[in-house]
């Protein structure tokens, strides 16, 4: 996983801050590959309660994390009990690694 301990801690903290302690965050995509370089930070965030504004929420969280990562591009994929499960959710859940 190509994130430092301090970056992982920052991301976890921002997710909890935004979504509460019932949320989890996994890294998936190219940043899991230790032999690759650079690339976006793809995060899979699962929350245990329904969310009212899923698009706004994932955008806000992406921007907060992006700012904390000094402008590195961040994409948050959100999973919540009231949202349809898409193929990408299943892949991220299976392949992702907890931060």
């Amino acid at each position, binding site marked *: 996983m190509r994130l430092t301990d301090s970056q992982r801690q920052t991301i976890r903290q921002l997710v909890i801050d935004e979504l509460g302690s019932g949320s989890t965050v996994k890294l998936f995509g190219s940043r899991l590959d230790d032999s690759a370089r650079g690339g976006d930070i793809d995060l899979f965030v699962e929350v245990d309660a329904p969310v009212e*504004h899923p*698009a706004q929420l994932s*955008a806000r969280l992406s921007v907060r994390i992006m*700012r904390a990562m000094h*402008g590195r591009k961040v994409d948050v994929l959100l999973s919540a009990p009231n949202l*349809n499960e898409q193929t990408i959710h299943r892949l991220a859940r299976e392949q992702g690694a907890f931060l």
Partner: protein
Amino acid sequence: MSDSPMNGRPMSDNFAERLGFLKRVVEREIHHLRYSSDSVFASPFTEERAARLGEDEALAEKLEAYTSRFCRLQDTTGDKLLPLWLRALGEKTGAVADNLDRAEKLGVLDSADKWLEIRQTRNQMIHEYIESPQVLADALNTAHGYQETLIAFAHAMLSDAKRRNLLE
């Protein structure tokens, strides 16, 4: 102050001419965006409507126009007008987020973070990719809710340029 539209700046910069051109582009983009916005959001854009996009070709086409017009105006304003306006003011330009922070400090944009959030929301406005009607409807309503802020940002830079005689 010089009466020249170039305002004493080097001819090679052509700020007045380039700002004048972008003003015309932005005004056309706003005009077309408003037309599409009136058509798509005449009734609330609900999850039910989002879920119908696969079969409702007319709605899908209207929405396609709305999203591409919205995205185009955000790109013209943030990626073209903003850096040109900053340079015309003698400000340094850099990454998009830095330029937006500068715009917020200079008082033409309410929130750089909100702008970036809307930029991020755009990925979730494309119905061919987003299979969740809740996410799609929320993304589209969020963009629509931001539309007047986006227009106000473009107008604020253009009015400022006009006040400083930077606009032809």
